[in-house]
């Protein structure tokens, strides 16, 4: 950005050339002249300048001699480690290696009987729509949507009658859940471990985003609606069918998979976005925490308890749109400052804080 367009103190502070001028007094970039031509920027320049001048740091004195002394010590240390250790190092490494081999052998032996050969191609295995028996199963037998925090930090809002099975959330190359019914997902970002939602006929693949899937048994179609990020949906291949169809969805897009005809249809749902979590915005600019907590309560169906009096002057600017609930709460607490934390018990969230600064 050109300096003519700077509108805040931070814009000036972020400019290394500006800092250089203020801190060294050497005006390489013609700041003095520039201010003369741009009198309306003058006030911002003065504020930014005063701030920098007030932010000096007395370096703890470290003399050149002290540095050289430390460097000498450092090299002595390195030489000592390098000359004495190789032999011991290899000996100890050999011991470790032996131990690892023994453990591995044991492991392989143990698993030989239990696991079918497909452990690497869990993808294929997963295309059976029956959930793998490992992992937890959440069943929403109540009449109201239910919030589920997955172990990887993602949030799921499961509608009544829905079931979610967590097949794999950690120690694997990807995260995997099975869904029957309707749920809204906010997936914790982790580019190294894509998050896959399997329903009977399709699979949705994301790295970190929020979206709804409605896959109710007996319904003629499966619906997907994306709130943020990107979702890749593909059809689960059955038997000797040719290549699976794939489709990419972006924010505010939706698609239906018509089970009967085996095709995707970019349908215009009459009612999207329909649930609170799907249309509420989590972009807050200088917003009072009460307002932020209210939005969260509404979106997730939770109750938030917080020290009202202590947070009476607490306004935050923050973007929480693309974060799961736990991450949202963490960011809010971090933004409120030190000594802020939260606990969550069922649908009750308790915020602890000594106030904002």
């Amino acid at each position, binding site marked *: 950005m050109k300096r003519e367009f700077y509108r805040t103190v931070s814009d000036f502070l972020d400019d*290394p050339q500006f800092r250089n001028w203020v801190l060294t007094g050497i005006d390489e970039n013609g700041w003095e002249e520039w201010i003369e031509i741009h009198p309306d920027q003058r006030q911002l320049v003065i504020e930014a300048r005063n701030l*920098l001048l007030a*932010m000096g*740091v007395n370096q703890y004195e470290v003399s050149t001699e002290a*540095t050289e002394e430390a*460097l000498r010590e*450092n*090299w002595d240390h390195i030489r000592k480690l390098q000359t004495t250790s190789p032999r011991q190092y290899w000996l100890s490494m050999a011991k470790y290696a032996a131990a690892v081999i023994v453990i591995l052998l044991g492991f392989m032996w143990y698993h030989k009987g239990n696991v079918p050969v497909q452990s690497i191609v869990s993808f294929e295995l997963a295309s059976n729509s029956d959930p793998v028996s490992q992992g937890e199963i959440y069943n929403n037998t109540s009449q109201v949507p239910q919030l589920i925090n997955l172990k990887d930090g993602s949030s799921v809002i499961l509608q009544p009658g829905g079931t979610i099975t967590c097949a794999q959330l950690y120690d694997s190359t990807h995260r995997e859940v099975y869904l029957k019914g309707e749920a809204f997902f906010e997936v914790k970002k982790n580019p190294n471990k894509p998050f896959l939602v399997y329903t009977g006929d399709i699979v949705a693949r994301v790295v970190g985003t929020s979206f709804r899937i409605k896959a109710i048994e007996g319904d003629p179609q499966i619906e997907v609606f994306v709130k943020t990020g990107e979702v890749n949906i593909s059809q689960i291949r059955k038997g000797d069918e040719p290549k699976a169809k794939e489709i990419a969805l972006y924010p505010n897009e939706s698609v239906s998979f018509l089970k009967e005809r085996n095709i995707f249809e970019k349908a215009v749902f009459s009612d999207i976005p329909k649930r609170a979590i799907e249309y509420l915005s989590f972009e807050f600019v200088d917003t009072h925490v009460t307002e932020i907590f209210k939005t969260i309560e509404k979106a997730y169906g939770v109750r938030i308890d917080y020290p009202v009096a202590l947070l009476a002057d607490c306004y935050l600017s923050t973007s929480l749109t693309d974060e799961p609930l736990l991450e949202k709460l963490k960011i809010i607490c*971090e933004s409120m*400052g030190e000594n802020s934390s939260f606990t969550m018990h069922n649908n009750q969230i308790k915020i602890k804080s000594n106030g904002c600064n």
Partner: protein
Amino acid sequence: MSVDNDNDSGLWDLLVDGDERAYSTLFRKYYASLVSYGKSLTQHHNLVSDCVQEVFLDIWLYRKTLTHPSYIKAYLLSGVRKRIARRLKRERIFRNPQPLDQVETTFKVEFNLNFTVLDEMIHDEETRNQVLLVNKLLNQLPERQKEALYLRYHQGLEITQIADLMDINPQSASNLLHRGIKYLRRSWMGEISLLILTFHLFY
């Protein structure tokens, strides 16, 4: 700043290949400012130099397997911070034993630094008074905000690097910075209009 990092990056490449001079050059270049940063993180100044040395030592010993950091200075600062935190935690466990899980959650390094006025750059009384005022307000900010400001404007780190280093979300880091500056501006404006008011009352 980025030219500087390009130089550092070149030195890093050389030291990975076993160039001792490149290693020494990096050491000389950053030792003082790392010690200075370390001392602002703990009262136990005697362990800071050790920690800085260990950070460098590890770079040399594990140079073949380390991934090339995108920003060398941020990498070093972050290394020093983590190393000090680890050391303090260990000592704390030894000194007053308590359940491990509590130590884990309650422990944090505490940034503690008093910003000073750069008097040699100030040439008139009006500016001096204003800067003194801002300095007073700055030093009243919570330590975390001060640390974020220090890392941003003193060490020249990017928001993402600060977040990484302080182990918080980038959005939180940006909040820390902006809230600090906003608070300063608000209080500063308040006091200045008060000054002008008193001025008008007296003259």
